[in-house]
């Protein structure tokens, strides 16, 4: 029996990141880290106190995204991260895994 991972394993979540965020350095960092994990990503809002990030992919990988973002780059202090279901549109969503 072969386990086939397909799009049905994927979920969409909105990640709300609060803290002292230097978005000039954090947004490119987020983009790279999400790309490394192969997650669909859309930034819905960003200022130096709050980022709303919509993610699509397997839950385990979204979880790794949260853990990575908790530390983030050196000039960013992340206070909290919350995750909730979302229905965002992903223009660049991956169609294959």
């Amino acid at each position, binding site marked *: 029996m072969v386990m086939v991972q397909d799009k049905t394993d994927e979920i969409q979540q909105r990640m709300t990141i609060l803290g002292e965020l230097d978005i000039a350095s954090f947004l490119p960092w987020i983009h790279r880290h999400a790309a490394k*994990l192969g997650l669909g990503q859309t930034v819905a809002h960003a200022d130096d106190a709050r980022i709303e990030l919509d993610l699509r992919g397997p839950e385990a990988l979204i*979880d790794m995204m949260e853990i*990575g973002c908790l*530390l983030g780059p*050196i000039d960013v202090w992340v206070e909290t991260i919350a995750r909730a279901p979302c229905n965002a549109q992903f223009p660049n969503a991956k169609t294959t895994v």
Partner: protein
Amino acid sequence: MTDDTASAQAMTDEWYPVGLISQLDKTGRQTALMGEPIVVAHDADGQALVTGHNGRRLPVKLRYGHVWSSLGTPKKDIFAIPEADQPGRRFVDVGVVRVRCSPLRAVENFLDIAHFPFVHTDVLGAEPHTEVLNYTAEIRPDVDEVWATEVKFYQPQASKSASGGITTEYMYRVPAPTCSVLYKTCPPRPTEWDVITLFVQPLAEDLCDVWPWMALFDDETAMTDLIHFQQMIFLQDRSILENQVPRLLPLDPGMEIPTRADLTSIAYRRWLKRHNYTYGAQLVAR
């Protein structure tokens, strides 16, 4: 957050272990603290004396079997370990293990349980029991320490006194940038925790002396066996630590993919970053 002088000062003003009280002598131990050569000795009256560059007298405290000193002006006392005053415990000075790695890396490795089955095979862990169950890790604002709790792991031989495999529960605490205290299931006394500490003396940013110390409920095991067991564990860690790349502990996880099993390491590194504790750290991922 990355001001160089502020960052250098933050760690300079902390207490560090620099030797064993039981090994103090008149001649003195020639060692180093954050790049500065120091001598740890006792004077004619038997008082512990730590001397830095050009003969300057450094602050001294004696606690938990060790001599502690600082290159700067510590604003706080050495962190408390209430179990050190608890009757019935045996206190074990394990001695020193020199490791060619960042002092922060040595602490991070101590906090990591995922390596048990692979590095301490058939002792602190064994295949196929390699899964790290979810646990809690946080920076506790009231005490300003890193705590990881509800850490559970199957161990074939959890301690020198353990006679078979048990699921061990751990709690980790980081009260100072290069010190960690581990609380571990105590087989002879289910209501108590064994205490195993890792006190790390930063010799340089990429070199440290590791001084483990224990406060155990164990009346059976010979002292030399307790010491040998713990030394064996740390020698297994040393070979891993000396091969880690990069040498310094990255405070930006950009080159790694940390997972939930690494939550204690993430909490530790967030706490280091928050306090400008960056001696032995790499600030930018590369």
